[in-house]
């Protein structure tokens, strides 16, 4: 029983971080119809930037902010230079371009920071006792912060002027343009927001397992899975799917090893594709 509670907490915390990664990915997919395979690598880059800022200043919260801003700018530049010229082409071309960007970022990180793991110290010290287990406060703080950031994104999309621009463009790009919405700029903005969310997730995740140059792909894959399971482009669906899949993985880890538990998410992915390709958490379209 207590093991189930511990794993529930664990699943929720992981789910919140994953939700933050996935919300950027799903926002980009919803508006541009592309899967950004460099998403996890932007996360990794953000984590390294964060680790460097912590290294120099010792201030974790500053690192979180700097990483988000730096990667947002980088994301915007990436979008303008490599993706914007491809608008209107076969989506496959764009997806391949993001794949290329992913490889470039990975090699850059390897060259810049080397293959070893960099640690980020936990900004919130201390543990609390949960049954027989010491659970770090930091993880709770991470989940709460991720929840706040996602809520912030949601409020921005719901009420902000630019949020309405983003939603209108997502629904009907041509009509949005006719209404005077500068769609190319909206694309760049969304890419910047998605990149900032990825970078912030990277800095949040950093203290969990350290920062490595190869961590990006795993996140891209996991975020991609929950984006599909939640219904491509559906923000709420992706968030629910992140929590759902992370909880399932957590519970599976009770019976099998954590490495094997990852298989659960693939099973959910395949089942979703087979039986509900529009996503688990959206009403069936008419």
């Amino acid at each position: 029983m207590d093991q189930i509670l511990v794993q529930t907490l664990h699943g929720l915390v992981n789910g919140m971080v994953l939700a933050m990664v996935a919300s950027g990915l799903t926002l980009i997919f919803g508006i541009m119809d592309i899967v950004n395979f460099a998403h996890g690598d932007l996360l990794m880059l953000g984590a390294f930037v964060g680790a460097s800022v912590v290294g120099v200043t010792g201030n974790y919260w500053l690192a979180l902010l700097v990483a988000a801003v730096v990667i947002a700018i980088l994301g915007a530049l990436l979008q303008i230079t490599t993706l914007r010229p491809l608008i209107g082409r076969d989506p496959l071309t764009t997806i391949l371009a993001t794949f290329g960007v992913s490889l470039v970022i990975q090699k850059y990180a390897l060259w810049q920071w080397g293959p070893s793991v960099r640690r980020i110290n936990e900004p919130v010290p201390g543990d609390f006792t949960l049954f027989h287990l010491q659970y770090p406060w930091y993880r709770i703080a991470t989940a709460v912060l991720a929840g706040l950031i996602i809520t912030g994104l949601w409020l921005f999309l719901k009420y902000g002027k630019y949020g309405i621009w983003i939603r209108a463009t997502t629904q009907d790009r041509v009509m949005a343009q006719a209404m005077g919405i500068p769609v190319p700029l909206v694309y760049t903005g969304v890419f910047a927001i998605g990149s900032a969310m990825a970078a912030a997730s990277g800095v949040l995740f950093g203290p969990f397992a350290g920062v490595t140059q190869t961590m990006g792909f795993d996140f891209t894959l996991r975020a991609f899975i929950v984006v599909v399971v939640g219904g491509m482009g559906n923000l709420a669906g992706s968030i629910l799917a992140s929590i759902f899949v992370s909880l399932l993985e957590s519970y599976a880890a009770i019976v099998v090893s954590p490495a094997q538990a990852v298989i659960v998410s693939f099973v959910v992915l395949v089942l979703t594709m087979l039986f509900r390709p529009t996503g688990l958490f959206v009403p069936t379209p008419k």
Partner: protein
Amino acid sequence: MLILESVDAHYGKSHVLHGVSIEVRAGEVVGLLGRNGVGKTTTLKAIMGMARRTGGRITFEGRDLQGVPPHGLARLGIAWVPEERRIFRLLTVLENLRTGLDRPGITPAHRDALLEKVYAYFPILKERRHQAGGTLSGGEQQMLAIARAMMLEPKIILLDEPTEGLMPRMVAQIQEIVHALHRDGVAILLVEQNVPLTLDAAGRVYIMEKGAVRHHASAVELRADPRVIHEYLGV
């Protein structure tokens, strides 16, 4: 104000517009009639830069629209009410209006005044302002599409078959709003199949056939001599 000179347009390989020339002067309501598939919608899309223009010239207030990006037309004063209405279905009525209202440089007071003005024309939109656009009836969506265009305070509205598929009561309301816009000095290029409405609302009328303008006359002339209408439209 808006001048199309021998405009050609293609969809892929098929040649849809053949040298269309149309002029709309400031504040004027101009009708564009023609049977199904003659290229009326394509003419509007050519203006909006959505159909591939392969010949001719389109100018607005003397400015060639060739180099204007698609989102730049609204700023110039051109609004489009498409045939399919294209309401942002998941946005509320108010959010739909805000897509045209949240422009750079607009003051909050002006913004509110504009909203109230449109709500006065379409009280039903005020009532339903927090409802998703997709849940409105066809007629309400048409009103929203027009109201949304009005948010841009355009100099001209390209209005594509606004009464298509509407109940008579709704048609009368659309007719009224066209008159009101005309009184406000907004020019309208009105694509219609409804001949009586067009002849009532428009000053001049162009009649298209097979991708070209075949006839051009004042509404007064056409009302006096319906043979032309009969010849091209079969009504």
